[in-house]
C-alpha cells in the first residue's frame, strides 16, 4: 500500500516538475504568427490569379500553412512551385490539377476601349494604366497574365496574347540524350514518391 502511494506520489511530483519546466519553455519559445506563411508566400508566383480558389497568393499561402489547402492548387506556379511547397511543408508532392498554360499577356485593343476603368480596378497588380474616358494600356512588364481583367470588360476589347519569346531569354534545353531524359524523369518520379 505504502509503496503504491510512493509510486503515485513520485510519479505525480515528477510529472508536475516536467509540466512546470515545459510551461516555462513554452513561454520562452513562444512564436508570434506563423513564419511558414511568409516562406510559402515567397514561393508563389504572385500572379494573384485566384485559380487556386483563394483570392490571391497570400491567402493561399495561409491556407497551405494551416494545412487547410493542398499543395497542388497553384496553376501558374506549375510543378516547380508545387514541389517547393511540398518540400517546405514536408509532405508528399501531389499531381497538379491543371497543366500550366504558356505565359500570357493582356493586351487592350485601344480603338475599341471605351475607357470605363473596370479592368483597372480588376487588375491585382496595377498593371493597367488609364483614366476614365481615356484609352487604357497594359504595362507588359507588370502583367502577370492572370486573366482577371478579361471578364469585367464590357466591350471585350482585352485579348490574352502569348508572351513573346526573346532571344536573350532563350536557354538551352536538357541535352537530347536518353540518359539525360532518364535522369530527369527519375528526379520527377522520385519527387512523386517523396
Amino acid at each position, binding site marked *: 500500500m505504502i*509503496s503504491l502511494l*510512493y*509510486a503515485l506520489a*513520485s*510519479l505525480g511530483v*515528477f*510529472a508536475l516538475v*516536467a509540466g512546470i*519546466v*515545459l510551461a516555462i*519553455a*513554452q513561454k*520562452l*519559445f*513562444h*512564436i508570434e504568427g506563423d*513564419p*511558414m506563411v511568409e*516562406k510559402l508566400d515567397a514561393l508563389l508566383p504572385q500572379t494573384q490569379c485566384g485559380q487556386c480558389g483563394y483570392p490571391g497568393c497570400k491567402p493561399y499561402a495561409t491556407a497551405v500553412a494551416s494545412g487547410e489547402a493542398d499543395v497542388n492548387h497553384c496553376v501558374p506556379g506549375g510543378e516547380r512551385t508545387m514541389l517547393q511547397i511540398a518540400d*517546405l*511543408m*514536408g509532405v508528399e508532392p501531389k499531381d497538379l490539377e491543371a497543366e500550366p498554360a504558356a505565359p500570357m499577356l493582356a493586351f487592350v485593343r485601344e480603338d475599341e476601349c471605351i475607357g470605363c476603368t473596370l479592368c483597372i480596378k480588376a487588375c491585382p497588380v496595377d498593371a493597367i494604366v488609364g483614366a476614365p474616358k481615356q484609352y487604357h494600356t497594359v504595362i507588359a512588364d507588370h502583367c502577370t497574365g492572370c486573366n482577371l481583367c478579361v471578364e469585367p470588360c464590357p466591350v471585350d476589347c482585352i485579348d490574352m496574347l502569348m508572351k513573346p519569346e526573346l532571344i536573350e531569354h532563350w536557354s538551352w534545353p536538357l541535352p537530347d540524350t536518353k540518359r539525360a531524359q*532518364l*535522369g530527369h524523369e*527519375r*528526379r520527377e518520379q*522520385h519527387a512523386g*514518391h517523396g
Partner: protein
Amino acid sequence: MHAVCAALPLWCCGYGFKHEKVRVFCGVRDWRVALYSRPMTEIALILLSSVLVNNFVLTKFLGICPFLGTSSKVETAVGMSFAVMFVMTVASTVSWLVQQYVLIPLELEYLQTIFFILIIAALVQLIEMMIHKTSPVLYQGLGIFLPLITTNCAVLGVALLNVQQEQTFLTSALYGFGAAVGFALVLILFAGLRERIEVSPVPELFKGSPLALITAGMMSLAFMGFSGLVKF
C-alpha cells in the same frame, strides 16, 4: 566558467573519489575501483566504443525508424542528429539520477520504463519547442519524426542499458552522448549516401526503402570491421 565545467568531471574522477559523497554521486560503490581507473583513457574508450564499435544503429539495430525516416536529406539528418544528441545525453543523465535517487531508495525499480519515458517525452517536448522557434523549416522537415524521438528505442535503450550495466553517473552521461554521436555519425553518412542513391537509376523494385535497407546492411557489414577494437 568553462574551466570549471571542464575541471569538474576530472575532479570527480580523480581527487573527488576520496570523498564519500562524490563517490556515491558517481555510483562507485567500491572506492578502490576509482584508484585504478585512468579517467582520460576510459573516457576515450567509452566514446570510441559507443560511437564505432557498439554503434546503436549498425550493431545494436536500435533507432532504425528515425534512421530511415530522417535520412533523405543531409540538412534534415544534421538537425535530427542534434535533437537526438540533446535528448539522449540529457535523458541518460536524468534517468540515471532518477534511478539512483528516486527509484532505488523507494524500491520502485519496476516503474523504470514509465519514468524514463516520461523524462524522454518531456525532453522531446522541450526540443520540439526550441526547434519550432529557431528553425521552422527544420521543424517541418523533421515532421512526425521529431515527436517520435519519444518512442525512439535508442533513447530508451541508452537509459535502460545504463542501469543494466551499472554505469556511474559520468559514464552513463558519456555513454549517452557517445551513443548519440554514433547515431548522428551514421545518420549523416547514410543521408549523404541516400542523396546520391536518389539520383541513381535504381531498378523499380528496389526504389526507396528496399535499397536504403540494403545500403544500411552494407554499412553495418563495414562497421563490423570495428568489432573487437575496444573490449567492452
